[in-house]
């Protein structure tokens, strides 16, 4: 009797210990796997020199934007009429001066404070809304899902640029209206990305397993579907950030976005238009900047896509 009690009392903690060790080992392995998949992603991304260069370039631009008052050599609104339209390499003004004698480099740096958030914030907001819509539509494909996708189909009937211009134009000029128009035209595209990914994931066995374990729909969507849907969304969002930066600048270029004298790359390009024949650098500089930013986002998006795809990674 005494023996059995001893063995029982000995074996119980040791059994519990074994189980706990097993559990800990599994946890550790899961953490290692998560770590290693993140590390694999990082290694793959590092190998992509264009993507890394793009990421570096964008980081530098963002830092310059944040510290604009420190980095910019002049006040972006301060004009020196004597030096109007002076070109590249003018003393103290590397990128020259514009039609009012304002330093183009300073305006370029300050301009990023408008040109980047006006495009990037709507992409983030539209992505959040699209994640919600796309997850619901992809998970509950009949009924509400069908309804969401049919409504969004309507927006595919418009050329994106024209729809956004019409919306922003009717609402009137200004930063919030530009952002609103970009959000509206982006939602159908990002939602479709989320929807397609959700649909594929929802049919996987591990979702059935989770359901069999009694997990609620909300838990399955947040814990099992969402993490698997994120990578295509991140890729799409990154690529479209470049396009939207160009587009938001285009709206300001047309006079439908941010209004002068605010420093913005689109407005700077527009201001150079009237002096194109005598001082092409005025519109060339912001144009090249837009091109570089769009290029960097595109290349970074391509790099992320390749690095996040396990098939391409190996």
């Amino acid at each position, binding site marked *: 009797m005494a023996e059995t009690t001893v063995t029982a009392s000995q074996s119980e903690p040791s059994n519990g210990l074994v189980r706990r060790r097993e559990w800990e080992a599994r946890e550790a392995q899961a953490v290692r796997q998560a770590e290693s998949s993140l590390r694999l992603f990082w290694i793959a991304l590092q190998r992509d020199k264009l993507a890394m260069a793009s990421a570096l370039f964008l980081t530098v631009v963002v830092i310059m934007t944040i510290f604009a008052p420190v980095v910019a050599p002049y006040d972006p609104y301060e004009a020196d009429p004597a030096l109007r339209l002076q070109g590249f390499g003018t003393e103290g003004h590397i990128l020259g001066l514009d039609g009012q004698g304002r330093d183009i480099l300073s305006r370029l740096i300050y301009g990023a404070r408008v040109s980047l958030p006006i495009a990037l914030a709507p992409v983030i907001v539209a992505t959040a809304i699209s994640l919600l819509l796309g997850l619901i539509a992809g998970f509950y494909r009949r009924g509400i899902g069908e309804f969401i996708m049919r409504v969004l189909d309507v927006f595919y009937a*418009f*050329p994106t640029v024209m729809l956004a211009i019409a919306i922003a134009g009717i609402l009137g000029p200004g930063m919030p209206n530009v952002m609103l128009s970009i959000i509206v035209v982006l939602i159908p595209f990002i939602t479709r990305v989320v929807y397609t990914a959700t649909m594929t994931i929802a049919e996987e066995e591990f979702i059935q397993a989770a359901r069999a374990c009694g997990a609620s729909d909300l838990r399955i969507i947040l814990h099992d579907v969402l993490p698997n849907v994120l990578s295509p969304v991140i890729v799409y969002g990154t690529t479209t950030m470049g396009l939207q930066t160009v587009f938001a600048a285009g709206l300001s270029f047309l006079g439908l976005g941010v209004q002068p004298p605010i420093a913005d790359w689109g407005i700077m390009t527009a201001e150079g238009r009237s002096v194109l024949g005598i001082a092409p650098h005025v519109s060339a500089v912001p144009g090249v900047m837009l091109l570089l930013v769009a290029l960097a986002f595109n290349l970074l998006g391509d790099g992320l896509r390749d690095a996040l795809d396990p098939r391409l990674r190996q």
Partner: protein
Amino acid sequence: MGKYALNRLIAVLPILFGVSIVIFLFLQLVPGDVAATLLGPRATAEKVAAIRAELGLDRPIHEQYWSWLTSMLQGDMGRSIALQVPVADLVLPKFLNTLILAGASLLIAIAIGLPLGILSAVRQYSFVDRISTVFAVIGAAAPTFWLALVLMYIFALELRWFPTSGMTSIRGDGGPLDLLHHLVLPAVATAAIPLAVITRLVRSSMLEVIRRDYITALRAKGMPQANVIYKHALRNALPPIVSITGLQAGFLLGGTLFTEVIFSWPGIGLQLYNAILARDVPVVQGAMLFIAFFFVLLNLLADIIVAYLNPKLRAH
């Protein structure tokens, strides 16, 4: 085939219905008192009341939509507030001008993009492939409005090869050569993005087909390279190319807005732009309706061509 086309056509109808709702709602986007905002600050009270009655703004919104839709379906697109002429008279001729510009751009994009993409795929990683990839990557990122300015500066202001604006010269005869002369710069500027997209797509689509076994088999049989590529590989690479080209044709319409404004090309983009600046909402609605209908039909056409090219799709 006919059944597939009919099914697609029927599927388009609810979308067009949705389009009409979205365009109708444009009027509701106008901030503040719609009638007063549309007419501007100098409008008299009688004029505001007249516009309110003309647009039916004093009636419930579903009634407004219904009367708007029925008159649209009867071909009455309303009157321009700023110019006091029927919207249809304003929009239709401008739309034809845009078709000339967009058609020329698409032609440039296909005429260069298709052979360049094929060449890039056939000689993967060659000099031609690398150069065309670099140009495609840059072209896809270049802002259309900036590219238009660059072209204008180099070829119109510096070299003086082409005119800076308009569709025909005032002193010219307005003949096809004059038109062509004016068309080159805006068409090239608009073509840049679709050209880049089509080149990359043709390349990737061809690469995928060239790697298949049946192509290796044809080569092993000793079939000449040109035959393998143009008769056998291209045919299977074509469906995605056609559907993307259809989409690009629609995006071209968006791109033309910038080039039309910069080169003063009297198209629907410039018309839309001027109407937006003047808050002439009936013209904005008419122009958008035209564009959306055209875009939907274009994609329908692309879908049907894709189905025709791909027997596997035809069966469904």
